[in-house]
Structure formats: structure tokens, C-alpha cells
């Protein structure tokens, strides 16, 4: 398959763009693979890509029950950042951020990574103390973090209500200037094309209905397109991890909840950075098409429905309008929902399971998109070597019984209070 380049585009322009070919093959399942990855979202496709490109394991299948990138990869708010407080989290996400910075080159596919700055607002002295603590923790690990004053926030985002009578007064912010947004579909398609070019079979419309088990070992999967044998099997279906792991008889420290987001009509540039408030739990950014993308809290009860309550959307809009009153003049284009794996400490789960040959990548809560490259990289390492990559060793499935939780917000074992 040809490389994409300005030259190929120019040549195509002269020949009526007849040169375009499908970016990946529509593969039919073979009888067996070295590695079978369940889930054709960003994480599954990235895992397949790095298995083939870094570890030379190319006899790999990615099984997707509908179309690739149609789950949470196509339902997020596309934010990319590594500004976490705890070292295991910020080291992992920082590794990912460095992959993001070169991802378009790596994949020869424009993922439109836009490092426009990811900013947490502080609304009180206590907020600013928390943000300073977070920034210090990041800086100690060599990650960029900068505390902003009120004046700096006002200069960066002139539409934020900086008045003292604001419903949520702004005292300052913590910004990570290397954070930003990316184009979600391009991430799935870029990894799919890259993996396909290295020989990975991407099999869509292939729903996994069960596992083939011999003793304590998983040796393959039953699917709607027949049985497929696998040397190693990887679950990469965040949102539905509980369901798929349940087919193998496993119970996970995960509860599935709905997370909603919304976008307005497209307007001229009005939000320069990614504006977030952790005290309110609200995030605002502007897409490259001009729509204002907003999100808020999950619907805090279990659901696999991929549709949420309007009250939650209303709450997110109310918060966003309180921060940036000009948003009230925009019309909402649409809302959507995804099913998220809410883990019991808010951190992901990557690694081995109690069943031999079965590996899990899930528990991403509402932060999975930004993790896509690092997750694929580390999970591929885990699948190829059978041992966890050092970056994801803290995220082992058995950490709860060991008392080694990674609880960024210090909430405790409560998936519905994150």
C-alpha cells in the first residue's frame, strides 16, 4: 500500500482521485492466530500495531463486534494530557503523550494532534493548593506543569467569567501546555492501517460469544464467525470488560456506567485551550470544525445502554455556562453516550488474569482515549513477553487484594463516586 504524502495527493488530484484504496483489508478469520485481540477500538488496534511493529508478532487478529472505532474511541471528547498527581499514572500517561507527539509520523496518518494546552481551573485557595501539589508531583517526574495566575487565565481565555461575583470564581489554574486534543477516528483508522500493512487481520462484525478453555488455560474464542484458536487472548473492550470477562467466568473490579458528552454548532475560535474544572467536573474544548465539545459527570449508576439521562447533560451545560457565559448563546448540535469501565480505584487494569493465556486491558473509567498509544505499547509488551511492562505493572488486576490501589482522588473502592 502506498504512503500518504502531499505528492500522492497532488498526483491524485490530476487523475480525479481514482488512486484511493481501502486503508485496510476486510479479513476473514483464519483457524488460529498467535494472538487474538477482542475489541477493535483504539486500544485493541494500537496493541496489534505495536505487537507487529515492535515485537515482530504479525500472526494477529483483531475481532470487532461491529465496526472499528465505533465504541468509546468514537464517543469521547478527544482530550490528551498527562497531568495526573500519582506517579504510576503520570509516568504512564507521559510516556503516552510522547508517543502522541510523533504519532502522525509514526503511522503516516494525520491524527491531528493539537497541543493547545490542557488547563485545570482552581476556584478557591484549597483548589490552588491541590493544583500546586499536582503540578509539583508532575514536575518532580520531569513533566511540564505551570501554575497560572488569574490574569494569565484571563489573557488565555478571555471568555471565562473572571468577575468576583461569578458562580465559580476563578483563582488561577494549572496548565500543561503540551496537552490538547486529537482526531479520534483518525487514531483508530491510522492504527488499523498500520497494523493491516504489517499483516494483522482486522475482522469486523465478529462478536465473541465465549471462550475455549482447557483446564485453567484459555486456548481460543467462540465467535459469531466460528471458533478461532489463539496462543494468547487479549480482552480490549473497555466499557464491556465486565461482560466479556464474565464469558470466561471472571469477576472484575469494574462497574459499567454511561458517560455523556455534547457538541454545539460550529463557531469561530472562542476557546483556545482545553478548559477543565475538577472541582466541578466539567471540560470544554473547541473541535477543529468549530464545535464546542463539553462533558461532565458519568451517570452514576450501572448501565450498558449507551444512552444517558438528560439531567446529566443539563448539569454539564450549567457548569460550562457558569464558567464561560458566552456558551449560552450557542445551539446544541447533538449529545452522545458511551459505556465506561468504572474501576474501583479510578486507575486502569492491564495485565494477566487468573486464567493462563488470557490478558485484560480495561478499567479506563472516563480517561481511555488519551491512553491509546501508551496502552497499546505496554499491552503489546505484556502479550509478547508474558510479563507486564514496567509502566503498567502498578495496574495489575490483583492490586486490590494486595491493598496496592492507585487511587488518584482518594475516594476508596467506589466506582460510582469517581
Amino acid at each position, binding site marked *: 500500500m502506498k504512503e500518504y504524502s502531499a505528492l500522492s495527493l497532488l498526483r491524485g488530484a490530476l487523475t480525479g482521485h481514482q488512486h484511493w484504496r481501502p486503508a485496510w483489508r476486510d479479513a476473514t478469520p483464519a483457524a488460529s492466530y498467535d494472538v487474538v485481540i477482542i475489541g477493535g477500538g483504539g486500544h485493541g488496534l494500537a496493541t496489534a500495531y505495536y505487537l507487529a511493529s515492535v515485537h515482530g508478532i504479525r500472526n494477529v487478529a483483531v475481532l470487532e463486534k461491529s465496526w472499528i472505532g465505533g465504541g468509546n474511541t468514537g464517543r469521547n471528547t478527544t482530550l490528551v494530557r498527562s497531568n495526573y498527581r500519582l506517579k504510576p499514572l503520570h509516568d504512564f500517561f507521559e510516556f503516552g503523550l510522547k508517543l502522541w507527539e510523533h504519532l502522525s509520523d509514526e503511522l503516516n496518518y494525520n491524527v491531528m494532534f493539537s497541543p493547545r494546552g490542557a488547563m485545570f481551573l482552581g476556584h478557591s485557595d484549597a483548589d490552588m493548593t491541590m493544583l500546586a501539589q499536582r503540578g509539583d508531583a508532575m514536575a518532580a517526574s520531569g513533566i511540564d506543569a505551570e501554575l497560572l495566575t488569574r490574569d494569565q487565565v484571563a489573557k488565555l481565555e478571555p471568555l471565562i467569567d473572571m468577575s468576583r461575583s461569578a458562580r465559580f470564581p476563578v483563582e488561577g489554574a494549572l496548565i500543561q501546555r503540551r496537552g490538547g486534543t486529537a482526531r479520534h477516528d483518525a487514531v483508530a483508522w491510522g492504527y488499523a492501517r498500520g497494523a493491516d500493512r504489517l499483516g494483522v487481520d482486522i475482522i469486523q462484525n465478529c462478536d465473541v460469544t465465549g471462550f475455549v478453555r482447557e483446564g485453567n488455560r484459555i486456548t481460543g474464542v467462540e465467535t459469531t464467525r466460528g471458533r478461532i484458536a489463539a496462543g494468547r487472548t487479549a480482552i480490549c473492550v473497555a466499557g*464491556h470488560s465486565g*461482560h466479556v470477562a464474565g464469558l470466561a467466568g471472571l469477576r472484575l*473490579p469494574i462497574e*459499567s456506567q454511561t458517560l455523556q458528552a455534547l457538541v454545539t454548532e460550529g463557531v469561530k475560535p472562542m476557546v483556545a485551550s482545553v478548559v477543565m474544572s475538577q472541582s466541578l467536573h466539567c471540560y470544554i474544548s473547541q473541535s477543529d470544525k468549530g464545535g464546542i465539545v463539553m462533558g461532565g459527570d458519568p451517570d452514576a449508576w*450501572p448501565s450498558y*445502554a449507551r444512552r444517558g*439521562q438528560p439531567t446529566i447533560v443539563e448539569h454539564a451545560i450549567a457548569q460550562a455556562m457558569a464558567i464561560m457565559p458566552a456558551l449560552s448563546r450557542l445551539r446544541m448540535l447533538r449529545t452522545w453516550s458511551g459505556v465506561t469501565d468504572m474501576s474501583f480505584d479510578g486507575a486502569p487494569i492491564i495485565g494477566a488474569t487468573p486464567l493462563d493465556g488470557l490478558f485484560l486491558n480495561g478499567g479506563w473509567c472516563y480517561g481511555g482515549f488519551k491512553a491509546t498509544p501508551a496502552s497499546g505499547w505496554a499491552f503489546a509488551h505484556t502479550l509478547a513477553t508474558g510479563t507486564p511492562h514496567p509502566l503498567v505493572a502498578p495496574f495489575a488486576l490483583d492490586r*486490590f487484594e494486595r491493598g496496592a490501589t492507585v487511587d488518584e482522588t482518594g475516594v476508596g*473502592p467506589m466506582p460510582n463516586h469517581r
Partner: protein
Amino acid sequence: MYRIPCPHCGPRAQAEFTYERTAEAIIDPALPASEAMPRLYTRTNPMGVDDELWRHTYGCRAWVVLTRDRVTHVISASRAIGPEVLP
């Protein structure tokens, strides 16, 4: 927004209720750690019907047990919590 039948107050707006936890996560203090641990930290999390503990937070404040489908959101049973529901 849908309505949740409270066994004490009748049907009320869902916004009045708070989901607390799945009913399988009720932990008897007498359980040994090996049995309490999976109840505290893991879930069946079925893509289907489950028994759940909800609280009528902005109503009578009672805890209730709902039998609810997690895909269709249909509530097939709502029970008051009492000796016959909890051990």
C-alpha cells in the same frame, strides 16, 4: 428521566434516587476476608438484570432493592429493605 417505584412513596422521578451498590456487595462482617474481598472489590456487572441497592435520597431517604435491567433500564421489582431482604 424515568420513574422509579419506591415501595414507600410510589413512583417518583429518578433524580430523587441515588444508586448505592449492587446487592451482591452487601458484606456480612462475620465473613472471612477471602469471601469479603470479592464482595468489596469485584462485581458480576451483568449486561442484563441485576439486584441493586438504591436510596430514595431526596424523598423518604429509605434504601430500597431494585431488580433492574442494565440494558433496557426496565425495573421489574422494587422491594423495601427488611429482614426478609437482607440477612
